[in-house]
């Protein structure tokens, strides 16, 4: 099992994901430069946090055109497991792998602090290690994490059990307190909070371990 970690010029959590997955949990990782196309031998792909191409236009708006992400989209359509964290979640919505959009936080400030989340794993492959209704703490660190979608679509997501992570105390104004979403098949997960920052007891909690450990089967 090798986890591919996407690297854009502005990615800055790529090495943190490697540390959490490989350093803390022993999952092999391989960095994938944004101009590459080779996903062979990978069991899953993470699009990590950061600022892809600077994100001066709109978070993830340019990233979706990267050669690598065309392969990632095909990988996801084949049922491959894809995880988008923070900027990665923004990119997944721009790619259309997940619905909705992420806009500036309600108070416009970047926020970095622990967030309590309620997990409803449903069919999401990444969250099978968590009990339904379980509360966990993952840190957030974003300026544009306010999830937006129209009420009908939100209702559809709710009905399908795709709202798998919800803030206990909404920090950014997201509709429906949405912190993370899965696709209908459950192989793609996008979330604003950082599970990779909750894998190492030396620097914080370890609630995120089970998310990455789901790759170990």
């Amino acid at each position, binding site marked *: 099992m090798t986890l591919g970690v996407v690297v854009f010029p502005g990615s800055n*959590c790529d090495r943190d994901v490697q540390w959490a997955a490989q350093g803390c949990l022993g999952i092999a990782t391989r960095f994938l430069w944004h101009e590459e196309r080779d996903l062979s031998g990978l069991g899953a792909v993470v699009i990590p946090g950061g600022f892809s191409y600077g*994100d001066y236009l709109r978070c993830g708006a340019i990233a979706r055109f990267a050669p690598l992400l065309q392969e990632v989209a095909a990988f996801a359509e084949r049922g491959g497991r894809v995880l988008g964290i923070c900027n990665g979640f923004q990119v997944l919505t721009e790619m259309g792998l997940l619905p909705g959009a992420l806009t500036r936080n309600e108070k416009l400030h970047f926020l970095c602090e622990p967030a309590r989340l309620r997990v409803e794993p449903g069919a999401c492959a990444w969250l099978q290690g968590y009990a339904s209704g379980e509360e966990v703490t993952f840190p957030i660190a974003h300026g544009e994490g306010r999830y937006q979608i129209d009420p009908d679509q939100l209702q559809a997501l709710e009905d399908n059990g795709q709202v798998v992570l919800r803030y206990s105390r909404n920090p950014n104004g997201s509709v429906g307190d949405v912190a993370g979403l899965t696709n209908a098949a459950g192989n793609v997960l996008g979330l604003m909070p950082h599970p990779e920052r909750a894998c190492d007891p030396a*620097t914080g909690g370890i609630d995120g371990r089970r998310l990455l450990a789901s790759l170990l089967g």
Partner: protein
Amino acid sequence: MVVAPPEYSVPEALKKENLRQADYDEICRRLGRAPNRAELGMFGVMWSEHCCYRNSRPLLQGFPTTGPRILVGPGENAGVVDLGEGQRLAFKIESHNHPSAVEPFQGAATGVGGILRDIFTMGARPIALLNALRFGPLEDERNVGLMEGVVAGIAHYGNCVGVPTVGGEVAFDPSYSGNPLVNAMALGLMETEEIVCSGAEGVGHPVVYVGSTTGRDGMGGASFASAELTDASLDDRPAVQVGDPFLEKGLIEACLDAFKSGDVVAAQDMGAAGLTCSCSEMAAKGGLGIELDLDKVPAREAGMTPYEFLLSESQERMLFVVKPGCEQALMERFTRWGLQAAVVGRVLQENVVRVLQNGAVAAEVPASALADDTPINHHDLLSEPPAEIQAHWRWREADLPAATAAGITPAGGAFAGQSLGWGPVLRALLDDPTIASKRWVFRQYDHQVQANTVLPPGGGDAAVVRLRPQLGQGSLEAATRGVAAVVDCPNRWVALDPERGGMAAVAEAARNLSCVGAEPLAVTDNLNFPSPETPTGYWQLALACRGLSAACSALETPVTGGNVSLYNETRRPDGSMQPIHPTPVVGMVGLVHDLSQVRGLAWREAGDLIWLLGAPLETGAAAAGVDGTATAGPDPRVGLAGSSYLERLHGQVTGRPPEIDLALEKTVQAFLRQAIADGLVASAHDLSDGGLAVAAAEASIASGLGAHLELPAGAVRLDRLLFAEGGARILVSVPPAQTAAWQQALDQAAASGRPVPAQCLGVVEADPELSITQAGTSLLREDLEPLRQAFEQAIPRRIGAAVPPTH
């Protein structure tokens, strides 16, 4: 000497470049002719205080700069210390005060970008950022706007570039209204075998430009930074650069990659004075020359003059001297990251900076004429303190109204005539924005990226970052060592007594490091001062440097470099000047030998005993001296003079701050570090603004646990016992199971001739309540919740922001 007059108006040009007629005469003498306009501009920036320390150099020479761990001292882009086990740390602090005053967001953002470049230019990967900020009172919405802009700018740059902002300090005083201070400090872990230096080597070697393009932004920023601020300064916004953290991210990766290839002989970032400074510094340091062809410099716009090219402070640019034949491979490392890279010149045998444009020489100046023997402004040092300072020093605590068990009725200030109990006094202090929680600030900074932050902002007296490399050997192993860092400056004390204040800045920084269990190693300092051209201004600068030197020597923390920012004053509409509090910010780094022993400031367990280390609480007319014997009179090492209590409750900034006992500092700190290493201590927090009561309240608020303290009986003023500052004091909690070992350690210290004053004052309690009694009489009994409310909401409520509670 007589030279032909140039084609421009000399007086106007000198004014623009912030040079004097004497400078011009000296330039003519050095060149043997009049400088052309571009050359004069080069001298203007190179001879500014910002680049050559023309006012402060004689004073800086008193700093201790060597020590067993110092690998690189002042003069290079950053200092470097040896951490042992093959690890080396580069670190430096720098100010961006004037740019932030006129354009707070970009001013602060580019301050972060600039200090990061100083670090990775040495071959070190940035691993942490801190900042020291000063603003005017938040009751003035202009100051609120400046603070919001500065914090957002720091967040924008640091968060995007992927370096955690792990700590810092923020303080408020009316003297900073309109002239905020923005000092950014960066730490980096060396990734290259050799430390990359800036002196050019190898005649004929190509000079390579990398990074962003050169535009007209940031024209003359160094000269601008070396003059006072006026209303007209707002017109100088073009002197503020615009930063691009995304480009800097790539520049970090590409530079470190390039340095590791061994193809780069020398490197210099383009900060203040841009191409001028980098060329002349590299040439002067290497004893060689550099030829620079402006036609080859990647330009952002067409039609730029040599003057504009040479003085542009466009961000995210670097200059390298490269081994011949390696240019192409090297430049590809940069284009891969979408960066510019171009061969723009070569190293010359002749010690000259020669600038070409359109095939003609646009400027030609001996490098040594620009960078060596730069002028010094000599000032006379007052032989005694200025009269207004002497007047402050005559203030006595006895001048305050009586303090009884019931409280006090201040005679002046915001609470004049109100009878206040000690509980409300404590709440008022926790509501002081300088003391209060800075969570509104630091929650905007990504303090976790890189996955090594062990002690986050607010968690302890210093930030602690694990020494796990980001890539290569050791990057996937759990490192057990860390580095701690802190920035400190008790500016109110410096304003009242620059020498004691300077000493206190160093002492507090070292104390903060010791409280988390780190061994203090070295200092980088940022001297933020008003104009040195007034007798008081120069006296402040000179005495503060004297204090910094004495304390750095005594605590064995050499100075490895830093930054000087003078002329921090604003011209009031009536023409008079408002100088800032002199603010010598001390950035200090320390080594954590065992991360599992790092201590925070929060109480840990109910039942732990609370001890006060340092100058003991007095019992009356007789006070215990360092050696435990009784000495007559109040302890001169602690007091209410210049305290937060005196300012906040009585509306006075006056008095002479207490004496700094550096021997006591050293003893207490060393003892605490050993006790922490031995696992005897559960928490440690130094007494700073607000003294004992505030420190106890902070430890309670951070933990949610209560505390009971019993003060010694005696005739000492109660406000002095509760709120006095100074005395190398630290509040620690000791688990009952360790009490015997703790007592034994104290006994051993006394027996070995290094007695450590220590008093057991009370106990941590499960009940969320802080109570302080004296001889059975209750002085203060406060529920934690209102204390927390005051502490956490002080800043948000003043700026109309909503910050949810932590619990």
